[in-house]
């Protein structure tokens, strides 16, 4: 060893430079930082996908409009759907799952922190790959740039005959790559929930949000795998001379539909189950009552998980599967209404007899219950196969699934943003701006998606870049488009509120909502190790027990 002295960093602390910060975030394996990165990444794609939606709606504001060309329009709806499903809603839900699950189960991190980081970066690069198509997909002269095959990319439109250039390849690879990320995260969530719970937290004492994410993660593993397989088969068709979906050589277009929807329908539940989780945490706290019928809620969620694997072909009632298969998928699809109905009733039961405080998170959750009710009822109409022969692939179905994805999922997500913002940042959001966001968004949402049902009933198919006058669709489409601007204003206020409150918000304290689950027992924002000592719990509401030692929950559960 040399005797030379080693230069010691000077005692005066230098604040870390931007590069140091960046390095810290890029190399982090902390579940909270990864959660935040998922969420911020998703918000960027929310804006991009929102701009695409706005372009679609401006084009459709009146018949024979020529705001964009058909080619651009087709790319817009493909990119809008793909972006919102795979690069907005899924990542943001994974972000909240990542951030909250360890805190809620009293753990110091996810089970596999490095897998967690790997999964995030796979998802992130998947999104970049999709958007790189705008630059890189122009493989042949005259070939398009961004993918234009629709987000479910039916064969044979994706074959090289009909999709020249590389746009479809970018789409395929983006989903393949982000699919690996999703499966990694799902495995991580399952392992964390099964193995990392704090002492006393039996499965029956987990917060419902954790239960719902466990089921969601199970569905991801089951549903994303067939999608990944299908993407590989599509690549084999396109480059290795395969004929899986090549109808000119005996392949089957219908097989692609089965592969896609056996992913695609559970995917809806992958997205909506965590939304149920948000509602099941927020509604009790703002009603000041425990969730009504916890065991039934868990049972209903598990039932939804199982049934959702057997309903996929209700997306295919019009492809000519025959009367018997159609009938099977009618009964399986309608069955799922029972556990979903039970959940709505239990949320009502939770509010019943409570003292409901309408803070912004609760406003979004009440609107969610209302909108999810309507989405469920239009879902029953679509499950009725003959009715679906009209409604399927019309604007009615577009309105229906936006009622689910925006009216239910995005609304609870906004609720979740406001509810956990104080925990994640340590600052309180601005309540007035939050309420303004709520009212703008709910007006915009109902203008757009209530009225969108009508042109569907009047025979307007989806994915048309323009339409003929005299079909009775003009007024409806006009109103639908106007609603978009209210929603966009709401989103801008939401983002502004987040940024402003992050810098200027009041200090929130560790438990601003007087809530009951473990994440509120630690500091805001939580330290890197989450809990100084691992908590031990005796009931589903450990903080209630702590605050009411005379009347603890564990006496009744």
């Amino acid at each position, binding site marked *: 060893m040399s005797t030379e002295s080693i230069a010691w960093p000077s005692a005066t602390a230098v604040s870390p430079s931007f590069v140091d910060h960046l390095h810290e975030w890029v190399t982090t394996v902390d579940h909270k930082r990864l959660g935040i990165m998922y969420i911020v990444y998703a918000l960027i794609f929310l804006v991009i996908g929102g701009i695409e939606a706005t372009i679609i709606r401006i084009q459709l504001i009146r018949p024979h409009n020529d705001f964009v060309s*058909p080619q651009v329009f087709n790319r817009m709806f493909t990119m809008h759907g793909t972006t919102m499903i795979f690069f907005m809603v899924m990542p943001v839900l994974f972000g909240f799952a990542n951030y909250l699950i360890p805190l809620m189960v009293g753990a110091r991190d996810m089970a596999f922190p490095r897998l967690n980081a790997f999964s995030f970066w796979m998802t992130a690069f998947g999104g970049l790959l999709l958007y790189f198509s705008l630059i890189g997909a122009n493989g042949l002269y005259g070939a398009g740039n961004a993918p234009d095959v629709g987000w479910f990319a039916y064969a044979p*439109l994706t074959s090289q005959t009909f999709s020249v250039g590389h746009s479809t390849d970018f789409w395929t690879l983006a989903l393949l790559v982000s699919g690996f990320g999703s499966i990694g995260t799902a495995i991580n969530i399952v392992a964390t929930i099964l193995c990392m719970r704090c002492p006393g937290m039996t499965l029956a004492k987990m917060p419902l949000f954790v239960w719902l994410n466990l089921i969601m993660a199970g569905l991801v593993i089951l549903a994303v795998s067939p999608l990944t397989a299908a993407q590989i088969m599509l690549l084999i068709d396109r480059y290795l001379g395969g004929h899986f979906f090549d109808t000119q050589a005996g392949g089957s277009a219908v097989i692609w539909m089965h592969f896609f929807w056996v992913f695609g329908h559970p995917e809806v539940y992958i997205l909506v189950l965590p939304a149920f989780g948000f509602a099941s945490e927020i509604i009790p706290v703002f009603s000041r009552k425990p969730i009504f019928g916890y065991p039934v809620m868990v049972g209903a969620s598990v039932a939804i998980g199982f049934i959702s694997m057997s309903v996929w072909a209700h997306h295919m009632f019009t492809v000519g599967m025959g009367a018997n298969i159609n009938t099977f998928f009618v009964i399986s699809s309608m069955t799922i209404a029972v556990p979903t109905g039970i959940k709505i*009733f239990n949320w009502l039961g939770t509010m019943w007899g409570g003292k409901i405080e309408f803070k912004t998170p609760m406003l979004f959750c009440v609107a969610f219950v209302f909108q999810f009710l309507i989405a469920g009822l239009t879902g029953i109409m679509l499950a009725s196969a003959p009715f*679906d022969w*009209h409604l399927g692939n019309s604007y009615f179905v577009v309105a229906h699934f936006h009622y689910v994805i925006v009216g239910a999922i995005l609304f609870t997500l906004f609720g979740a943003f406001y509810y956990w913002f104080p925990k994640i940042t340590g600052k309180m959001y601005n309540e007035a701006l939050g309420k303004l966001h709520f009212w703008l968004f709910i007006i915009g949402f109902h203008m757009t998606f209530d009225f969108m049902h009508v042109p569907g009933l009047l025979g307007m198919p989806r994915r048309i870049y323009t339409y003929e006058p005299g079909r009775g669709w003009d007024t409806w489409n006009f109103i639908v488009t106007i609603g978009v601007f209210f929603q966009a204003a709401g989103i801008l206020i939401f983002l502004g509120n987040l940024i402003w409150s992050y810098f200027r918000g009041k200090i929130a304290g560790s438990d601003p909502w007087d809530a009951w689950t473990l994440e509120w027992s630690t500091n805001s924002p939580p330290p890197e190790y989450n809990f100084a000592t691992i908590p031990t719990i005796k009931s589903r509401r450990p903080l209630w027990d702590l605050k009411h030692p005379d009347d603890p929950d564990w006496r009744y559960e």
Partner: protein
Amino acid sequence: MRSRGSTKWRILGSQIFVCLGSAMAALADPTQPLSPTNIFAPASTPARLIFGLSLFVLTVTGGIFIVVFALLLYSVVKFRKRKNDDGREPPQVFGSNQVELAWTVIPVLIVVALFMATARVIAGIQKVPRPDNAIEVIAIGHQFWWEYRYPALGVVTANELHVPVSDDNRPTPTFIQLWSADTDHSFWIPRLAGKTDLIPNHPNSMWIDPHETGLYLGQCAQYCGTQHAKMLLRVYVQSPDEFARWIQEQRQPAITRNEITQGQRIFETTACVNCHKVAGTLANGRFGPDLTHLMSRDTIAAGAAKNTPENLRQWILNPAGIKPGSLMPAMQLSDPELDALTVYLETLR
């Protein structure tokens, strides 16, 4: 708090009224058409069966909506936190097995009823055997137009489907086989039947029996590529006599004159003949619409434009001007050539 709450419900209430109002408007008075493609104005048995089912489903779901919405409205109004709240927590209720049982069993019964009604209509439409006197049509979806073949009648046409009316005394349903030449399409005439997809390598079929003569509109309902939007459907329902006359005319070859006109020469010496057929002449292409009786059709370009000499000329000059993404190339003809060609096409009656 109170005043804010009531404003909220007034706004929400008015929105609901608007929704219900619009739904009622869509339902109201099918004879005074709100839209030529209204699914609630059925004119053929499959559409009528679906209409009946949809009314049943709408009634049941509407009933559920009213009950659950009333409960939600009641609980948010009744159980909101009051201004003079004493700050104590409300009674902590964890659940009730009786209530859970009730709201499980009742939905199960509703689902059973809806399923039975649905299964009956599925069988009533999909399990109907083809009667011997049915008209048989093969509809072939192309990017971005429709080919119709009447194999028993020896007729081939494009974009405008003609079928006979089917009244109760003389039921003459039309059974349509659905094929695709390229990508997926979907055949949807809302007033006549629900949609059925045309999928390559996967032949489908459907049937209609329109009860009233007239023109029924629709359009392709499965995304099929760039010009999915202008792949319009037109079904002409004719009286038996008119239909018989139409078939008679369509079976004739094109009227040929003794001397070949300049327009016909241009048609037969350019790429037109690679794709189009004019029966009784050299033109024998199969890729594009059959033009033998072009002038018997009201529209060109799959319903995208009226069939006028001016539109026809514009179409030949630059198809992408009317239908961007159309697979017909611009033929790069001079003005006199265009005029001559248009004159020739106008003779194809």
